[in-house]
């Protein structure tokens, strides 16, 4: 029951990744959907600058050593099983060949049964070859300090 990853030479565009150290968090459990995060600027040297709230971050543009493909799963969520299985280490260690054979056979028949229900596939939506990485500490923006002390 192989799960297909479809790719189309034309369709896969280039998307960007912005890497932030840590996590964007909010105290309340308020939904952040569609909310504004911050502004992204570039200076004339190509350095990215990100302003989030009262903080300014300076980063840099970096080519990814190993590019990423963005995969999107379509139809049903049963296919997730497969990726989750990576964590479960269930290498069938067959002590003798016949027992091992029976087990794989069983897996296989189960797999064949699944085949009818599970039509999960992945599509490569885009490729990411570059990222903007912000790994320095954010600096606070100090506004309007009185000029005379």
């Amino acid at each position: 029951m192989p799960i297909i990853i479809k790719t189309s030479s034309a369709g896969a565009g280039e998307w960007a990744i912005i890497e932030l150290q840590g996590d964007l968090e909010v105290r309340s459990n308020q939904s952040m959907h569609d909310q504004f995060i911050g502004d992204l600027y570039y200076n004339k040297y190509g350095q990215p600058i990100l302003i989030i709230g009262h903080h300014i971050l300076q980063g840099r543009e970096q080519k990814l050593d190993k590019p990423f493909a963005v995969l999107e799963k379509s139809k049903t969520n049963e296919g997730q099983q497969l990726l989750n299985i990576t964590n479960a280490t269930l290498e069938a260690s067959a002590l003798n060949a016949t027992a091992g054979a029976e087990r794989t056979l069983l897996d296989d028949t189960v797999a064949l049964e699944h085949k009818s229900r599970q039509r999960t596939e992945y599509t490569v939506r885009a490729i990411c070859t570059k990222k903007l990485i912000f790994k320095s500490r954010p600096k606070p923006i100090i506004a309007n300090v009185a000029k005379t002390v």
Partner: protein
Amino acid sequence: MKNFWRAIAEMELEDMEVDENAPHRYVRTAEDVKAIVKHAKMDERQLTQLTQALYYPGAEVVSDNLRLLELDEHMLQQIRTGQTLHFKGGLHEKVVLCTDERTYDVKGAEISNSLLLVPELKFAAATSTSPLKSPRTGNANTSLERSLNDSADDDLEVPRTLEQKQVLTIFHEYFECREIRPRYRKLGELLQLTRYSGPENEYCIERKLLFSFQQLLDTVQCSRAQFVEGLNQYRALEFDGHIRILDYEYEYRIINLMLGVISENSWALDEVEREETIYALQGIAPEPIVAGLFDVYTKPSDRCPNKFRYQESLVARIVAQNILQPGLRFRSEEFMCTWQDALPEGMTCKLEYLRGLGILDREGAQPCVRSLAEEQLPSNINDRMRALFKTKRKWTMDEMEPYIDCFTTPTLSVSTLLAKHARSLTEGGIRYFVSKH
């Protein structure tokens, strides 16, 4: 570092909580941008013209449906050319990823950093109308250069533009791939159950356990190209729409008859005719079996067009397998003599052909050859090591290689594996490996 972000996000929330209850969506305006640039004391002339305002993913995005997959050169090139990739694995197997040619182990990697995936985000070069400046190189003329540039910038003041960009999802995990060797074991185990030993024995075969090419390809954890190669290694052939391997004795018998056709026709070893061979075996074995075996065992002749020659290594192996039944051992010279005599004239037996079938044991008073079939050993490396050292106390690396080879990966060689799972010692200038415990 995490706390920093918490602090930031809070601050940001305060800024935005203008209207708590209404499903209000704040949209960044050009004025806001102007204000914040000033606020942050950034020199607008030092910035490119475009500001991109970032937003959290929308509620409609099912982030669980999106995955980041790290690619190597080969995978990237496959995707770029529109090839299809496959995830493969049964219920109790670790999933692998296959291109048409290669197989990869897939592993989830969690990271503490956040990866914000932003479609259509512009990188620096795309936001500037003039080429980007190279980072300061020589310190001496920097100030001069900058003052010159600054004055130039003053002249052509381009208005700031604003684009709204939505983050599609935020990842804290990606999948990394490591190229591995094809996993053929399941193929062997499945084929093993239905060995073909002639039409008269077919009634014993459980029909449910017969598989077609496609069924096997779908379940065996390797790429298509590797699968074809694997079938060849197992000397599998297609019979009646199913992939089959033969019972050793039956295979030996048929091969022997096919080799007999050579002397009957007084052919040279590289003058073997395919049609003639198949014709000669009519009525003795089904044609697809003879034809299939012929294609597995022969290579086109270099000397005569449209003629073939049997591969010495394959012929020698099936003969050796017939002599060296499981559990048997022979005095080395005796074995080599018997083996050589059973081969057609012009072919020579070589110890290396025994690879994965048997071993030469020099430990006793008389060197002997004993059967040790790779395919019958445990598939787990720890268990296999134990089994190997139980069979023979000390091994050289070359001796062990056929039995360990299936565990190697492009980054994990036989010697690395042995360093981990065995102890090495040197005796009389020869390096041996013995059990760790």
